[in-house]
């Protein structure tokens, strides 16, 4: 590539080589205004944001709380069942020679 061309040749060269034909975007203007409007309407405070997203927030909160509540209950029940079973097995091991291992191996 020849990089020693005089500067006065650069303009015509670029005009000849780099021609772009931008695509028309009829939605550009309305898109810009929509973004400006959205920014203008964005809530400035937490309560305003919550008011605007109340349904989504409430749905998500109810679902999450329900799942967490179910999970907590499930863990508690499983733990109680396990403790109960250990007590029963300890009792059985004291009167059933066959069940010795089930307690000693714990």
């Amino acid at each position, binding site marked *: 590539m020849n990089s020693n061309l005089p500067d006065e040749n650069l303009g015509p060269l670029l005009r000849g080589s780099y021609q772009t034909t931008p695509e028309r975007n009829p939605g550009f203007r309305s898109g810009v205004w929509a973004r400006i409007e959205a920014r203008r309407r964005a809530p400035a405070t*937490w309560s305003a944001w919550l008011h605007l997203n109340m349904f989504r*927030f409430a749905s998500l*909160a109810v679902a*999450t709380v329900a799942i967490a509540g179910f999970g*907590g209950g499930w863990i508690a029940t499983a733990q109680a069942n396990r403790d109960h079973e250990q007590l*029963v097995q*300890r009792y*059985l091991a004291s009167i059933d020679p066959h069940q010795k291992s089930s307690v000693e191996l714990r």
Partner: protein
Amino acid sequence: MKFRWIAAALIAALALGAGCIAYVCMRKPMPAVAADDGDALLWLRHEFKLPADKMARIEKMHDAYQVVCEEHCRIIRDARIELRKLREAKAPAAVIAAAEEKSREVDLVCTTSLETHMRDIASVMGGEDGRRYLSIVLPRVAKFDHAGAPGLDLESAKPHAGHAHH
């Protein structure tokens, strides 16, 4: 974006709270099962909350049964040691079969004796408590693989966990 994070944190806190409340409400406090204080009757005490006189009778019956249980342990252990020796010595099939039959018999005697003891305990408890006791213990005894008896310590004759404190 900042508000979303606040909402997420709030929901997470709510979920944590709900989980903890559900856990506390649903849990059934049990006596410390991990501590090996040797109290085999802890379950009966905790689960059935029997009157003191009934509990005292059950404790006596339980202690008395320990002697029977020890004897069963010894007989079962002897029968299985004998069976193992015969198998290792590659004894005739008929002899091994006879030893297996004897082993099954002593297992059956043990199981029958155990069930009788449990029914006696249930009759002392009486009523719904007795029925509930049997509904808990009998299926567990029946479910246990008496034929295999992996728990019997064939190498030593030391008493098992339930007997150690008596």
